[in-house]
């Protein structure tokens, strides 16, 4: 069987299905190829969505515990793991089927299978239901995403050693868990297990959690993590792992570690040391598509590969590997394919770590500014003076603005605190619209909300925050 479409999208994650649906909305005949029953990709099936469902539960547990300090004491939580897993699965099911449904309504041809290139305008698709299908296309968009990376020379075959996918399956609530890698995936999933009662140890190679994020933001999280996690080992790495049956024996190296730290046995290990692009697509060598050294498919600003008929978006094209970045690229690629002068040139890609407290940032970070030797001014507003934060007894927060001293333009925003992920959207808008500190200062923010911290940070830049006294820095 052979079909012909104007556009085929390979991979139905938030990049792929966004591309397919946008193209369909613009009137193209579109096919979407993915091995899953419904579109969704890693994000919906094995990433953002199930982890957020679990993190919601973790937050509930944390807040219930915290309530005793406010005069309301609940009993210890009883965890019905099957029910919890079912809740998470229902969330995934609801969203993926919903996404599938809006694809059908758009008459996007969803093909459940694996695609390989037969040439520059044709695919062979190995159908999940058996058999193959040939598909010819005018344009293709590769959106095959990424998979969990493993520690080189350290991967052992053991059901006790999990990647993020395995951890999201919630096989049990282990007594102890080692999280290898202190990035956002490790911290998010580590937080879930810690809330469920697991003693969680995190090992991070660099001197701090969340490498790349501004240290003052991470410090806010650190204070909480030190309480909720059993141990955080920094500048340390796992050098050996052995499945001993009842547990995994792990050898850790690092400066200043005690012997007890160095040799430990954990019930389970979560390896979250990053993700690698899924660029090993069969038949790609029949096209001019170039794959770079780190395995990313090379694309230009319009998301074109070296092969004029083929585009690529999302994790497979490079960092940061974020769903919302892929969805945005999807629109760029579709427009490029249709001959528009589209370009992927965001000024702010928000990043959110959904721990408790959350950390979020967008645009230029203070760390980047330092690396670039770029002079910036940083205005910080600590949530200790934020009424809404006090009312929910969560004064552990910080909102900071990275400001160009010459133009007073907002170059970046960083937020640590509960709800930071929601608050950062204002930062994205400010950076993209080239707002000045004055603009944020002069825009009325609702009281009492956490969003006031953005306005007050701008006021601090001018030395005029209502709730913080700071000596004058700038004439307004």
């Amino acid at each position, binding site marked *: 069987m052979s079909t012909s479409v104007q556009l085929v999208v390979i991979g139905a994650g938030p990049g792929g299905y966004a591309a397919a649906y946008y193209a369909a909305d613009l009137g193209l005949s579109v096919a979407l190829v993915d091995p899953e029953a419904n579109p969704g990709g890693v994000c919906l099936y094995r990433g953002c969505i199930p982890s957020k469902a679990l993190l919601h539960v973790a937050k509930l547990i944390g807040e219930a515990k915290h309530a005793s300090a406010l005069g309301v004491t609940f009993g210890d939580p009883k965890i019905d793991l099957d029910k919890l897993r079912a809740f998470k699965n229902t969330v995934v099911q609801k969203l993926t089927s919903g996404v599938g449904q809006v694809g059908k309504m758009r008459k996007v041809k969803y093909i459940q299978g694996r695609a390989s290139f037969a040439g520059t305008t044709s695919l062979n698709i190995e159908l999940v239901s058996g058999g193959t299908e040939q598909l010819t296309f005018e344009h293709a968009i590769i959106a095959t995403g990424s998979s969990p990376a493993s520690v080189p020379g350290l991967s052992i075959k053991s059901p006790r050693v999990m990647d993020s996918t395995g951890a999201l399956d919630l096989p049990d609530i282990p007594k102890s868990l080692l999280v290898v890698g202190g990035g956002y995936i490790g911290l998010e999933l580590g937080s879930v297990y810690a809330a469920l009662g697991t003693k969680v140890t995190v090992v991070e190679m660099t001197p701090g959690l969340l490498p790349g994020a501004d240290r003052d933001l991470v410090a806010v999280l650190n204070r909480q993590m030190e309480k909720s996690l059993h141990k955080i080992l920094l500048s340390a790495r796992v050098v050996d792992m052995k499945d001993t049956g009842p547990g995994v024996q792990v050898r850790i190296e690092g400066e200043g570690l005690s012997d007890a730290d160095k040799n430990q046995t954990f019930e389970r290990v979560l390896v979250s040391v990053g993700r690698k692009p899924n660029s090993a697509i069969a038949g790609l060598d029949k096209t001019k598509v170039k794959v770079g050294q780190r395995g990313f498919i090379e694309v230009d*600003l319009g998301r074109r590969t070296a092969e004029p008929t083929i585009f690529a978006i999302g994790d497979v094209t490079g960092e940061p590997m974020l769903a919302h970045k892929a969805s945005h690229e999807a629109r760029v690629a579709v427009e490029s394919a249709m001959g*528009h*002068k*589209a*370009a992927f*040139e*965001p*000024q702010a890609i928000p990043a959110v770590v959904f721990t408790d407290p959350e950390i979020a940032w967008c645009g230029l970070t203070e760390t980047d500014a330092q690396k670039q030797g770029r*002079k910036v001014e940083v205005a910080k507003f600590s949530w200790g003076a934020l009424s809404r934060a006090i009312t929910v007894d969560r004064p552990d927060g910080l909102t900071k603005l990275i400001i*160009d001293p*010459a*133009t*007073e*333009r907002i170059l970046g925003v960083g937020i640590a605190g509960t709800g930071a992920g929601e608050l950062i959207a204002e930062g994205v808008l400010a950076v*993209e*619209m*080239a707002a*000045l500190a*004055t*603009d944020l200062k002069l825009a009325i923010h609702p009281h009492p909300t956490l969003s006031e911290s953005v306005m007050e940070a701008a006021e601090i830049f001018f030395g005029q925050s209502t709730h913080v006294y700071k000596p004058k820095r700038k004439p307004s």
Partner: protein
Amino acid sequence: MATEFKIPELGENVVKGDVTRILVKVGDIIRVDQPVVELETDKATVEVPSSVAGKVLEIKVKPQDKVKVGQTVLILDPVVQPAADAPAPQRRSSDPKPQRRVTDPVPQAPPRQAEPAAAEAPGPTSVPKPATAEAAPARTPASVVDITTARAPQQSASSSSSAAAAAVPAAPSVRRYARELGVDIAQVSGTGPGGRVGQDDVKAFVRAQQQGGGSRRTGLATAPTQVLPDFSKWGEIDVRPMSNIRRKTAEHLAIAWQAPHVTQNDKADITALEEFRKSYGPRVEKAGGKLTVTSIIIKVVAAAIAKYPQFASSVDVANESIILKKYCHIGVAVDTPNGLLVPVIRDANRKTVTQIAVELAGLSQKARDRKLTLEEMTGSVFSITNLGGIGGTSFTPIINQPEVAILGISRTAIEPVYKDGQFVPRDMLPLSLSYDHRAIDGADAARFLRFVADGLEQPLTMVL
């Protein structure tokens, strides 16, 4: 107590210059009004006199530095009085107040780091100082450029690499709009707060590009430029940076050219005038001038302007009005080894030809010596450019915006003219009047030029 000498206001529209020479050294005792530093500004080399007296403790600039109005040049000990009244050192040592300010940071000095960038991209913010090949320097009535805003657009004036493009202060919708029009948004200077680029800025940029010049606001630095081939592959080349005068000339002409130009050509029979020049030349020479055709034409043009006042106007597009000037200052282009300069004869309508001739001789010499002050190069309402000394039969002078007309003069030639039933040899002077068609109608231009020609042929017609 130390004091500072800072670059004072240098003149209308001038905010910066290049240090060419330092005229004092540490330890010198200087008096008020003594020149201390020589600057090359946009149009003139000026010696900057000190406004304070004292002993030079420190010199904060060096040759080739770019300096701005308000920048500290010298740190002086004012107590050391030059010459006579100078028991100063003692007085100082007995002064109980410690000399703290010597080491104090200089609070008013503009941040140094902002300077190189501002110097690289002068166009975007400063209203460029006119300087045209045919016509002249800045009579721009614009206010003095605000130094503080000079920093904003330098980002957008930077290269168009994707990193630079990503840093352009413009909303995503505006960036898309520019991209779809094929405009590199990094080239567009924004008029919004913080240099933010709006859709109107992109439109203005495109309009300016379509009119063949640079963007109105961006000037030379960001004018759309063609990518040049590597000329050295065809032979030896030499690359020289533009001088201030050349750069300003280029910037100003690109802008001036945007006015809708028409050039009206005519010829004046100056046979009789040449006789007159021969007879009365020595008298003017005695007065210290030279009775040139140019000095006579200045007087005739002043009379023409009195009759046709729209030739001394400016088009104010923003306010949809025509500004008529009731004074009659005439600019005259002078060819100098450093480029073209345009000194201005004030109130030409109230001066005799002899006065004009004397004044013009003096100004021309100062132009060649680069001693013209900015005041001597600003305020003209109409310009004259005479290439007759070199040759040519006609040319198209470019109007010295914001003026609306310019008179070009080519070389006088003896031509046969049919007169009284026969051809007679006559001295014919070619005249080329370029005018801004927005302000001046073609028929009026023809009348104006004929009035000038008649004035040269039959001077009495001017007073008829």
